[in-house]
């Protein structure tokens, strides 16, 4: 007993000392908070602007996706080397969330509170980014160009700070669905879906055209690498065409499992899961198991909305190749790095559009005002306006053959809901000579 009370007494003495000390401190402080009224804009100075992002650098979604921020970083370094935008260099911080929503929440906390970023750019993932959606909007942090095609990012009334970027999974599902309905009218369609909004939105789009043809919809949980039951169920349901809305690792896993089951449907993977280079490299190592090359993906159908490294003559790819050669780190230019650079390119345009002295409010307003006119490597325009925050409006359907892709359709443009699917009009944009987008015309 005596020791206990001694301890209490000691603690009491220590705390009392602390109280006295801090009371002195408090007495010395001005109590008006003068000078803090006009709070300086967060994350932006006359010479720099700091933006943040969360990406899976480890874990199940890291293959491929971890390359996106390296591409964005290379492009920002390229812009900074040319003097930055309006005299400001772009300071790009990206942190690892391991595709784990709980970790995303902590990481974004750090970006906003510790790093004090001006805006978030391209935070990746549907389950991950939805965990911080409310937070970013309640803190008033511009949440630009989320790296995910969920419909969640297009809710300007509820989430005024958040903007989508890539074609959303619903319109991708619609375009794929229509393609299948027209070209494989007899097919029994199976769906292989990630068990979250990614899979749900894609299914929603595909069912608009294929509801009667779909014989099975199987879902996997990211992180659980055993997809044997799902593939077996698709096979058991007799599906002879499978549409996958999944991340790249699961393209490899589903292919491996199909091999095991001698299951050979026509595979269609959404853009997200279909990068031939990456999936091929995951599958290629099974060489002794008689999977000799990426040939497994030969004949797989997918969609595209950015030029890829298989088209080295494309002027955008040439620009990005130059950027990567000059400012990239280890490794080759990949489709994921092109994705990151394209996002960075969009951000630079938004920053230009926000004028000489951007604020968090003005950059959001600028994207709403002129975002629909942004020109870049994407095949169809964004759908940004005051009451829409949706990204690229179309994709083209393509087939993978021998590591490259060949177009099966022209660029098809549509919108959410019942909007019809039409062929894109207008010419593709050419990159500016210096590789940096010019400020848009005022107004």
């Amino acid at each position: 007993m005596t020791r206990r009370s001694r301890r209490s007494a000691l603690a009491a003495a220590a705390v009392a000392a602390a109280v006295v000390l801090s009371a002195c401190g408090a007495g010395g402080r001005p109590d008006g908070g003068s000078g803090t009224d006009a709070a300086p804009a967060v994350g932006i100075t006359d010479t720099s602007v700091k933006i943040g992002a969360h990406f899976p650098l480890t874990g199940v979604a890291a293959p491929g996706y971890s390359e996106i921020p390296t591409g964005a970083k290379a492009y920002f370094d390229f812009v900074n080397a040319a003097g930055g935008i309006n005299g400001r260099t772009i300071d790009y911080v990206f942190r690892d969330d391991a595709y784990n929503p709980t970790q995303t929440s902590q990481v974004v906390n750090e970006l906003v509170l510790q790093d004090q970023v001006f805006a978030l750019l391209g935070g990746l993932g549907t389950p991950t980014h939805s965990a911080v959606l409310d937070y970013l909007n309640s803190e008033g942090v511009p949440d630009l160009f989320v790296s995910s095609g969920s419909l969640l990012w297009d809710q300007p009334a509820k989430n005024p700070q958040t903007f989508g970027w890539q074609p959303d999974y619903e319109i991708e599902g619609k375009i794929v669905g229509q393609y299948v309905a027209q070209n494989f009218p007899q097919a029994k369609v199976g769906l292989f879906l990630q068990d979250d909004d990614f899979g749900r939105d894609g299914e929603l789009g595909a069912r608009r055209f294929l509801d009667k043809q779909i014989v099975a919809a199987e879902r996997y949980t990211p992180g659980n690498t055993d997809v044997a039951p799902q593939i077996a169920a698709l096979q058991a349901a007799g599906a002879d065409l499978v549409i996958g809305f999944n991340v790249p690792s699961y393209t490899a896993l589903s292919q491996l499992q199909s091999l095991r089951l001698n299951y050979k449907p026509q595979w269609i993977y959404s853009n997200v899961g279909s990068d031939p280079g990456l999936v091929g490299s995951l599958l290629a190592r099974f060489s002794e198991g008689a999977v000799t090359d990426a040939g497994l993906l030969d004949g797989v159908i997918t969609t595209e909305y950015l030029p890829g490294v298989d088209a080295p003559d494309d002027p955008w790819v040439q620009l990005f190749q130059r950027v990567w050669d000059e400012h990239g780190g280890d490794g080759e230019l990949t489709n994921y790095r092109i994705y990151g650079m394209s996002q960075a390119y969009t951000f630079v345009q938004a920053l230009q559009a926000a004028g000489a002295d951007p604020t968090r409010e003005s950059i959001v307003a600028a994207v709403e005002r002129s975002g629909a006119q942004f020109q870049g490597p994407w095949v169809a325009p964004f759908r940004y306006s005051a009451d829409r925050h949706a990204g690229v409006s179309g994709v083209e359907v393509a087939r993978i053959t021998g590591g490259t892709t060949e177009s099966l359709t022209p660029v098809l443009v549509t919108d959410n809901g019942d909007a019809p699917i039409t062929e894109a009009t207008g010419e593709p944009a050419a990159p500016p000579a210096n590789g940096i987008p010019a400020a848009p015309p005022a107004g």
Partner: protein
Amino acid sequence: MQQFLNVTLTGLGQGAVYAAFALALVLIWRSTRVVNFAQGAMAMFTTYLALTVIEGGQSYWVGLVVALVAGLVLGAVIERLVIRPVEGGPELNAVIVTLGLFVALQALAAILFGSTFRSFPAPFDLRGFTVGGVNIAFTPNSIYIIVAVVVVMLALVALFRFTDLGLKMRAAAFSQEVSRLLGVPVGRMLTLGWALAAGVGSLSGLLIAGGSLVFPAYMDAVIVYGFVAAVLGGLDSPAGAVVGGLTIGLLLSYVSGYLGSELVALAALAILVAVLLVRPQGLFARTAARRV
């Protein structure tokens, strides 16, 4: 019917691996009364060593040998360095030490080998057989897995039944005091027991990895399933571990195939709780009752 067949065959293949893993747990439990929760992490680590060797241009079989030898060494070193001091102490201390090893090894693997998913080669074809026009989820690689596990088990049986060394190890595990009096080097036998167990564990890690993706946490669930299998068979019984492993493999495969893969871990928990409450000595215990 085809699905039932496929689910069953998949379960058998997984069961063989769980059996090997459970066997490793049982070997350690018999010799030192410690449940080695670091078993999965140790196996993961040696599998990464094998992967490094294979990516360096060596064949799968060289990788296999490297993993097994590394497993033996790792097991012996861990027993000598960190298990020996807590042997015979409060049982909680040994549990916490193995958990610490688990956490440390997993993090070390992520530092040394990276934490992204990497593919691990399989030595045999991954394409399923076709029998009479019906595809079955049974591949040449599955046969390899089962054969490998059976060979290891037979070798262990031979070691324990027919060799002098095996007799000494059994004696050391049975009664340390008596064995010491009879001149058995008990300490050395315990180290050997850990080494053998870690070797068997390494094999199971390698077999699971073959033709699939590896990452530092890929053995996490296997620890739980292997533990459940070992408890089901009676933590003391090697034969029980084998039967337990096959049973768990089949049951979990049915759960995964018919109820949903997210329920697999829950099913394992349910089996474990049922066994511990209804027949705590396991299916194959020699003694009538055991303190759990």
